[in-house]
């Protein structure tokens, strides 16, 4: 499977995503510069974490106007797989590829720590091989997911809520919610399921040396879905 990792000038998890898909999972990968529009040959585009264009304004607000996002909109519309992690999720909501918005964390602090995620929908292309829960660190200042009531209901009804913050046993509860996200949402997908956005970083827990390695299951799932879809 061929992955494209987008590099905005302020991206800083692009090399981490590259490392995981290419060195840990043995897939083809290349970087895509933010000023480029060429996504040819790619099967999955990763919008990595970081601070796209500094994000002094609103996270991801400027990135939606970048040349590469025009191509990504077309790529996603044609059914290509797109995943936005952390800042990438913010870019996807700002670009209208996913509904809702990411607000300041409710305690107004940057938070970096491991979180257990309940896989709320194990039938998406991104989660078919995931266990019931995975551990993925968060590292964000603006990760409080917000959407209006109708949108939220639609997301829930369609199974578009993919990950929720949970306790270690997978139990839900507001006490496990680090940032005030509505419905404890940690990640959502679009209606078609080919575009995923999530605040936690599965790439930070894709090797045994850095945790339990359960974050790799997300990447394994999408590779599996791609291979199955082609077969």
């Amino acid at each position: 499977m061929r992955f494209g990792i987008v590099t905005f000038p302020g991206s800083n998890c692009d090399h981490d995503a590259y490392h995981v898909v290419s060195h840990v999972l043995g897939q083809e990968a290349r970087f895509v510069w933010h000023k480029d529009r060429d996504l040819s040959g790619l099967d999955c585009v990763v919008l990595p974490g970081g601070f796209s264009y500094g994000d002094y304004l609103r996270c991801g607000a400027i990135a939606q106007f970048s040349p590469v996002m025009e191509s990504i909109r077309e790529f996603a519309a044609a059914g290509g797989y797109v995943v936005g992690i952390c800042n990438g999720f913010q870019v996807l909501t700002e670009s209208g590829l996913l509904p809702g918005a990411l607000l300041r964390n409710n305690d107004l602090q940057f938070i970096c720590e491991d979180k257990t995620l309940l896989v709320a929908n194990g039938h998406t292309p991104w989660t078919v091989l995931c266990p019931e829960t995975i551990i993925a660190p968060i590292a964000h200042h603006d990760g409080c997911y917000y959407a209006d009531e109708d949108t939220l209901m639609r997301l829930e009804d369609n199974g578009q809520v993919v990950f929720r913050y949970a306790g270690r046993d997978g139990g839900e509860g507001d006490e496990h919610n680090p940032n005030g996200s509505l419905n404890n949402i940690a990640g959502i997908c679009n209606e078609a399921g080919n575009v995923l956005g999530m605040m936690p970083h599965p790439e930070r827990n894709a090797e045994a040396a850095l945790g339990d390695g359960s974050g790799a299951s997300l990447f394994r799932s999408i590779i599996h879905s791609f291979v199955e879809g082609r077969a």
Partner: protein
Amino acid sequence: MTPAPRSGDPSITESLISEHGLTPDEYQRVLGHLGRTPTHTELGVFSVMWSEHCSYKTSRVHLKTLPTEGPRVVQGPGENAGVIDIGDGWGVCFKMESHNHPSFIEPYQGAATGVGGILRDVFTMNARPIALLNSLRFGSADHPFTRRLITGVVEGIAGYGNCMGVPTVAGEVAFHPCYDGNNLVNAMCVGLVRNDQIFRGIAAGVGNPVLYVGSRTGRDGIHGATMASDTFEEGVEKPRPTVQVGDPYTEKRLLEACLELMKEDAVIAIQDMGAAGLTSSSVEMAGRGGTGLALHIDQIPRREPGMTPYECLLSESQERMLIVAAKGKEHVVHDIFAKWDLEAVVCGTVTDDGLWSIYEDGALVASIPVGALTDDAPVYNRPMERPAGLDARQVEPELPAHGDCNAVLKSLLASPNIADKRWVWRQYDHMVRLNTLVRPGAADAAVLRVPKTDKAIAVTADCNQVWVKADPFTGAQAAAAEACRNVACTGAEPIAATDCLNFGNPERPDVMWEFAEAIRGIGAGLRELSVPIVSGNVSLYNETSGRSIHPTPTLGIIGLLEDADDAVGMGLPPTGELVLLGTPRPRLGASAYAQVVHGVEQGMPPQVHWDEERALLAALKAGCAEGLIRAAHDAADGGLGVALAEMCMAGGGGLGVGDGVGCSVDTPAYPEDVARELWLFGETQGCAWVAVDLDDVPTLLSLCQELGCMARHAGHIGGDRMVVRDAWKTAMVDAPVAELREAWETGLCDAIGLTQPPPRA
């Protein structure tokens, strides 16, 4: 050619000279170097270059005595950062620097730009930064400034480091009333570089172009270096415009552009613009190269119109670099910087006249022999005097026993200096770049894997200022030993150091004595452990209204693990045995126990026994390499009792922090209350607890015997209580680990009035 004063320049008067921080003697030296009256621009340049911050005029004679050589040293002091060889062609490039004065005036920006500055020092050497550390000091937890300062400083460090994508992995935070008027912010950066691809700031090649790259120059930070070379009086708001404003997004692009550029064959020399900005970067490059340099100040990109040469030269605007390029390769620099949407402007040339010459629209406005600003800057051997009353302060205090060791342990764990610092480090991205094997709070040092090798490095920043104040020579030796022991407790061998020497007003003979003695102690200690210092920074004049801080010589240590898999943390495994390495010589003088329980700061710091210390470091390294040691933690603040509690509280989480694990330990402590508290909370050098599997105990004990390290099988791991018995097998400490942890986790936020973070997931 003689520079002419510009119209509008103030005339050079005694009061103007004094405002620039130059003494009458120093001004006479200026006249001697120039053979004429300086222009206003030149006066400003002498002022910053001869400031303590840039010239090290007070510290230089003492710094020369530090050990700076060793077989692994690739680059010692004098460059932007030091480099130490870790094998396979890789070097670790690192340095620590203070940003104390600005962080007190404006905590967020002061701390943020401190991080920005130290990052530039490292990537200017062509090293990819892989970790940040910091050492912070604030006044008493209940001082009215403390909450605002710690909140701002931590957010500032987070705001800059997180955006740069460089993980902040380790450090320390401590509180003491001596910092009420002067907090300390020491930032350290660690990078990786190929040893044969290091870039230096040495101007060479007459006619080669000088390029200015990065942010535009504004009026911020003018005379920052001079401000940092002065004491504070009450009402410090006045110098606020001397604090710079950080832009980490620009620095991130500058980092990537510089590293990309250094892959091309276009750069002769490169230097970051830190303190004293354009002036010091250009002067230092010419000084190292033995060349001259001509700058056309009108070419410098500016944020606002109407800036004078004086302002451009002295601005400390952030995120700027100066590059000497190979003639004809200017376009390579332009192209790469344009890709990252950054400016790169030719602003001068390397000359052979030994002069630092500044032109404005073709007119010469400053011309100074380079040597006058570098090697021939004033050097002082300031008078020193052992502080009055030190003898009395060194008498070991007679402290009555408290009587309840459980209560003492809890109050020590809850005291802000020992309490959990999770509120601080959860605001730092400590995982980005995927190298952090041992995270903050999980060991005495952070451990990072070195990509493309099997190796890992352990990093720490540490200083016990109460020990150093009590006796600067002994205390600094102890600080050096402890910092090295911290990396050894992860299984690493300490291989190099950087220092950040924070002291009071050196014009006071007692402060100067503390400075000289502390440097002597650091030098002696690091020589004993064969650890060279390869970079460093001095921050003097940390004094407010006549009150100087405790001497605080922070040490940053790099440790090397040949095999990353050997790394251990401090948390106990669920089962196993406890072995105590080393010979405890506990004493309560200058201890956390004396301060927290009795409110006494008196007595001598614990003495280091170097043979034992070396044996301990060897045993820790060998025990981890052989796979015998599963967790290790040294006795430091709060002694053996607190160290053991910390291992219990972190237990059960492998290399991370788990839910806690109990233990049951027998000691030779006499059953009297005084003896029990001395054994549990007395502070000692050269000791560490290690966790071992039952079957491995004999192997570890014989390994230690071979290496000359005392080792005693002291107890068992397991259960959910921490139990420590005296020589009559009576429990001195018997408490649920969960209770200890409650005290430890809430201590910091309770003391300062911060919002508790939610419980660990």
